[in-house]
């Protein structure tokens, strides 16, 4: 039966997250300046969040992908920095497909004591595994991966190659992590591999289907993050429209502002519905992410117009949330990649 309401357990997860993050992850840039990402991560780990996808038998918290999506929506709402999506969603999904040999690693990921990330993108700048060139067939790996999230925090790099997946400790000889300077969002890295030795134990026995599923989980999580962020922007914008007085009345009394706010509601509600449907397997992840990227970025840009000059200042949180949406819209597949998948799904001949 079609039902948009989270279960009572899911509602508890969401309200716990909302309250915890309200206290430990302030949105105002000046209060956030001293935020310790690792300390925040440990707090999240105590709540069992990194282990949501992992079964309790291995030390996880027995959640579902829908639970993860609802949680990440809250992470987006609070603009939480850190390795949750690369580690607890994408890398964990891949390692879960890797069989019994990964159990110890998964246990440590579940407790948050270990952090992993996925390295995939190459020179083409695409998350499509079909076009990858790097290989470790010879037992050595040379080349580079781009736009790797959380590489600085990660103990393990899950590296997707042309012909398989390897899991490497990030401090192995020959691996270098070079920070890129993006306008915002979590730090991104270029990871260089210079004749890195690859042993049989480094190889992760997973199918191409498992890789695709893990990337989809990552894409879905980034969609949830955008939706949560756009919800926050909507709330902030409506609050501002009610309280900012110009010409003797709140600007929210003007039709121009009212209609802009109505469009924010449309964009947030539609992106959210498509997200939940995709999380429950009722529609494409590709459609949900492509739609949310456009809708949530539109929400952010329109909000700048509602807030006016103050939102141009570094001290205002809007630009920080906006930049996080931008980063999320690209991670695990940009709009070009996902719209091409949708194009094929609706039957357009390639």
């Amino acid at each position, binding site marked *: *039966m*079609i*039902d*948009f*309401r*989270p*279960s009572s357990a*899911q509602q508890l997860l969401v309200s716990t997250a909302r309250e915890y993050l309200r206290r430990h992850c302030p949105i105002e840039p000046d209060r956030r300046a001293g935020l310790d990402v690792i300390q925040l991560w440990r707090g999240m780990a105590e709540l069992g969040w990194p282990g949501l996808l992992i079964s309790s038998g291995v030390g996880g918290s027995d959640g579902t992908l*829908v639970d993860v999506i609802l949680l990440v929506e809250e992470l987006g709402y609070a603009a939480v920095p850190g390795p949750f999506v690369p580690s607890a969603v994408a890398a964990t999904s891949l390692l879960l497909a890797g069989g019994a040999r990964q159990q110890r690693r998964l246990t440590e990921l579940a407790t948050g004591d270990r952090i992993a990330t996925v390295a995939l993108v190459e020179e083409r700048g695409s998350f499509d595994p079909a076009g990858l060139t790097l290989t470790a067939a010879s037992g050595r790996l040379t080349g580079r991966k781009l736009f790797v999230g959380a590489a600085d925090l990660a103990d393990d790099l899950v590296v997707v190659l042309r012909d398989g997946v390897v899991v490497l400790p990030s401090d192995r000889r020959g691996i270098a992590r070079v920070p890129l300077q993006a306008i915002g969002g979590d730090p991104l890295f270029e990871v260089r591999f210079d004749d890195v030795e690859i042993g049989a134990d480094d190889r992760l026995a997973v199918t191409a289907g498992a890789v695709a599923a893990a990337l989809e989980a990552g894409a879905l999580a980034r969609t949830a993050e955008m939706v949560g962020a756009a919800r926050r922007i909507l709330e902030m914008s*409506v609050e501002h*429209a*009610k309280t900012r007085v110009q010409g003797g*009345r*709140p600007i*929210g*009394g*003007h*039709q121009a*502002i*009212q*209609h802009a*706010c*109505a*469009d924010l*509601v*449309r964009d947030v*509600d*539609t*992106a959210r*519905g*498509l997200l*939940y*449907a995709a*999380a*429950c*397997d*009722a*529609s*494409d992840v590709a*459609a*949900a992410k*492509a*739609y949310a990227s*456009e*809708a949530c970025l539109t929400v952010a840009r329109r909000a700048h117009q509602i807030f006016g000059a103050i939102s141009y200042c570094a001290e205002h949180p809007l630009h920080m949330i906006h930049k996080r949406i931008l980063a999320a819209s690209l991670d695990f597949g940009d709009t*070009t990649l996902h*719209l*091409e998948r*949708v*194009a094929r*799904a*609706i*039957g*357009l*001949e*390639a």
Partner: protein
Amino acid sequence: MDFTFTADEQAFAAEVRRFLRDRPPSTFAIDGMDAGYGSGANSKAFIRALAERGWIRMCWPRAFGGDERPMFFKLVLLEELARAGAPFGPLPGIWQTADAIIEYGSERLRTEVLPAIARGEASFWQGYSEPDAGSDLLALKTEARRDGDDYVIRGHKIWSSHAGIATHGLIFTRTSREARRSRGFSMFVVPNGTRGMDIRPITSLTGEVYHYEVFLDEVRVPEGLRFGPEGEGFVALLNGLDSDRFWGRFYKAPALERVLHRLVEYANTTRVDGVPLARDAGLRRRLAAMATELAALRWLFYRAACQFRDGAPITYETAVAKVMADETGQKLARLGMDLLGMWAPLRAGSPEAKLDGEISHAYLTSLGHTIAGGTAEVLRTTVATRGLGLPAGAR
């Protein structure tokens, strides 16, 4: 959270698809133009065929001759009909009127009109708008004056869809002058052909007739054809508006999906310099983006549907859904025109017309959708004030 249809709903969908295979929609006689909302043309024969299956009354209470099936069966039926491009034009209005009769109706409406609805023999036009009462509906001037056991209606209604081929008008009138502007209205169900009712066609921009204007000159209506208590018509109307926006647009997403699939098929099969249009990167992207918007639109309506089903309060959800449905429809029509290029303006029946002239027709009719049933501007204001709590009043 669940996005799957129940086994009963899926079985019913299959039953509807079998019906559409056995009785192809294109074989039914058409009485009135397709105004592009997604419910197809007006076909009395098709409505009677639905009635024969018991599908018009299927969700009514048993006491009123219904089968008490869950509301979602109506959604299943509408989606299947819209995907098939069936001519079920009057059905949503028929259902809404039936629901209003069951909730507010007099004994006479329940015993005379409701059975005719169940048989597929009744359909309705809305007599709401007037020449000087459009977005400002409460400025209406049509009056119903009490005269013994009857009312006598005098006024002028306009933009009444398919009024000339329907069986009854739902006429919104003022029955008294009250201090509060929203009090003193009453709604009547008036049979077409009642003495004093003059229904005149308005030729639309497509060249066909969709709207009518109706002159009401001393139209005598018995008290038994009034909805609910006298003077409280506006409450019923307001409750009806949320449901009007919903039932008037729910089927638009599946109907637009049907059009999108036709455009995809056209792009796949049309070659320019030997290359299928479908290979054009820009076009692929626009069609794919449109598919995501239609999926988003569909779930937006399903969320409102769940609120209706669960009795959750609706403040802005149907308003925002209607605005999006209509603007997305206009965008799709524009995309279709672009895709068809030089062939785009050709109308149905013209030599060289592509896709049966459906796209040029959709392009024109969609212009009215953001105006009818509450303009996009009025509804955005509703979303902002009723939904978000922004200050009302100053316009």
